[in-house]
């Protein structure tokens, strides 16, 4: 009787140990997205860039299966809002389509902000011309179209780039953003870099010609192009595809006409010089196959976090965004980071501390 009891106790103990081991194995195998290897719990809040929004929403869904105890929230609202929220500690990470502008540096005084590039995407020059399925444009012509210097589709400047294409004599309708946007900032940055005749500068809001039509969001501009014959506008790749728009091939720095695609955007990002803080501009990149109007978005995180747990959570989530999450991007019509940048982003994760 006595012996039997001891025996059963040993069996129970062994079973418990096995269970604990298998649990530990489970939790360590599920944290391949990066991070500290244990299951985390808590809430992370982020806001900012609406360019990232679809990726963030999808990534948050999939991340739930890796860290079920963590809640991640991402509100859009624009890069400017994200940076303001980060500066006032409302959020733990901010999405931004541009590095912190010098005017805002004062808000981050005494703190080190880490940049994690997360997505890349082409900006298309979409148009609505029945019967014209392929169009070639270069930066100076795009500049003159968007400055209303070229006002007809059959203007010599456009026909010279498109031999054999029958262009109508109809007027060009410019479609642009009515709200301030990182898409506008990067599109105008492309024109500043690539077109000497561009006079309107670069900013999140441009003083467009008065007869242009404004739409709210990429979707709003896509809607105008779709419903207005003769319209041309800049729309990010995902929305242009979603609305079924036709877009032009753009002459890149190497002199080749390149159509916007996930591949040509990643190629552009692969050809940029990345600064030590991981900021770069993928607009007007060199390389034979680079799409010239490619833009990028970062997640901004403070190097020094207030608690170890927050630091661990950020490492896990941002690690997922630059790690396994990248595989989600092509399905969402974003371009994944090229390996050269992705590795630097992953290496930088260890800098997040408390």
């Amino acid at each position, binding site marked *: 009787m006595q012996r039997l009891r001891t025996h059963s106790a040993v069996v129970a103990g062994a079973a418990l140990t096995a269970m604990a081991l298998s649990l530990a194995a489970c939790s360590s195998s599920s944290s391949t997205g990066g991070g500290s290897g244990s299951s985390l719990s808590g809430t992370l809040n982020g806001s900012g860039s*609406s360019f990232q929004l679809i990726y963030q929403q999808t990534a948050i869904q999939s991340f739930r299966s890796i860290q079920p105890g963590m809640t991640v929230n991402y509100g859009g*609202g*624009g*890069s*400017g*809002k994200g*940076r*303001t929220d980060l500066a006032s500690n409302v959020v733990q990470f901010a999405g931004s389509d541009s590095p912190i*502008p*010098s*005017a*805002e540096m004062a808000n981050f005084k005494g703190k080190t902000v880490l940049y994690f590039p997360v997505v890349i995407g082409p900006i298309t020059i979409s148009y609505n011309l029945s019967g014209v399925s392929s169009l070639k444009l270069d930066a100076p012509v795009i500049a003159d179209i968007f400055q209303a210097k070229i006002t007809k589709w059959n203007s010599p400047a456009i026909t010279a780039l498109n031999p054999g294409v029958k262009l109508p004599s109809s007027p060009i309708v410019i479609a642009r953003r*009515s*709200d*301030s*946007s*990182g898409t*506008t*900032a990067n599109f*105008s940055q492309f024109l500043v870099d690539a077109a000497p005749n561009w006079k*309107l*500068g*670069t*900013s*999140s*809001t*441009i*003083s*467009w010609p*008065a*007869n*242009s*039509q*404004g739409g*709210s969001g990429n979707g709003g501009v896509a809607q105008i192009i779709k*419903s*207005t014959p003769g319209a041309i506008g800049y729309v990010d790749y995902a929305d242009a595809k979603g609305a079924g728009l036709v877009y032009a091939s753009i002459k890149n720095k190497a002199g080749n006409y390149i159509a916007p695609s996930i591949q040509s955007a990643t190629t552009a990002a692969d050809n940029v010089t990345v600064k030590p803080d991981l900021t770069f501009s993928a607009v007007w990149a060199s390389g034979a196959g680079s799409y010239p109007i490619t833009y990028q978005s970062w997640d901004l995180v403070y190097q020094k976090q207030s608690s170890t747990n927050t630091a661990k959570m950020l490492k896990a989530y941002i690690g997922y965004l630059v790690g396994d999450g990248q595989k989600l991007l092509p399905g969402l019509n974003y371009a994944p980071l090229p390996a050269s940048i992705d590795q630097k982003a992953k290496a930088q994760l260890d800098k997040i501390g408390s």
Partner: protein
Amino acid sequence: MTQQAGPGIPAGPARPLSERRPLGDRTFQVIALAAGLMVLVILVLIAFSTTQQALPWFKAEGWGIFGKTWNPATQQFGALSFIYGTAVTSAIALIMAVPVSVGIALLLTEVVPYRRARPIVYVIDLLAVVPSVVWGLWGILVFVPWIAKIYAHIASGVAGIPVLDDLFGSPTSGASFFTAGIILAFMITPIVTSLSREVIATVPAIDKEGAYALGATRLEMIQGAVWPHSKGGIVGAVLLGLGRAMGETIAAALVIGSSATITSHLFAPGDSMPAVIANQFPEASGTFRAALIGLGVLLFVFTIIINVIARTIVGRAAEQGSA
């Protein structure tokens, strides 16, 4: 009603009112006072913090805040085109909404019997509860494409006629000053109507009956008895409607066209103060951001002025009415 102190109470050296009150009454007084003061404090804090955040703009531009050019790319932030847009769209809204609103108010009080008037009142009040974003989305998705064709017809009709061509010529798309004005007119009609109706309802029956007794027709009665009595109140109602039109944000932002231009062409895209704040704030930083907050401060000041004028006129009219 004015003689509340009954003759039974001796007119002795009364103690202050507060000492005679029970504790609950005094507590209530304190709570009510605190609630009232809180509104004031919040208002002052909003004014203070927004002004503080807008300071970089005021410092950078000086009187240039009323300049013509708004171009974030060159760091020029003059607000004149938005002030102009706000004034023009509000004026269009008032010109369209006021005659209709006053007409409805007269209809409801003087023409239709009360029982039949009630359903009409419900419908108009329903207009007031439509959220402004719904007005804006309806405007941009349904109204703008439809009215763009009408604008094109009008423009071709007035081509070459001196003044009309300047006002109604060269439309670009449906989104314009005029469209925003029309949407705003829809939005302010309920408030102007219900305030006017209340004012007109206070006209003493004896005045109206007197007019009829003298052989006046209904129109003459309205001209002679209703109008002089309710003139001030209706002006106040109109100014309150103006305040609402000036401050309307999201509906205007969606249908106004978003172009910082000053032009006599009403069918051309423009921008107004609240619309530009809503549209450009998300990606703004530095002086740009300060300028947008500063626009909010200016708008705040303008609406306060309009509201004070409105309240004064309504108050004076009420005094005249009771005198």
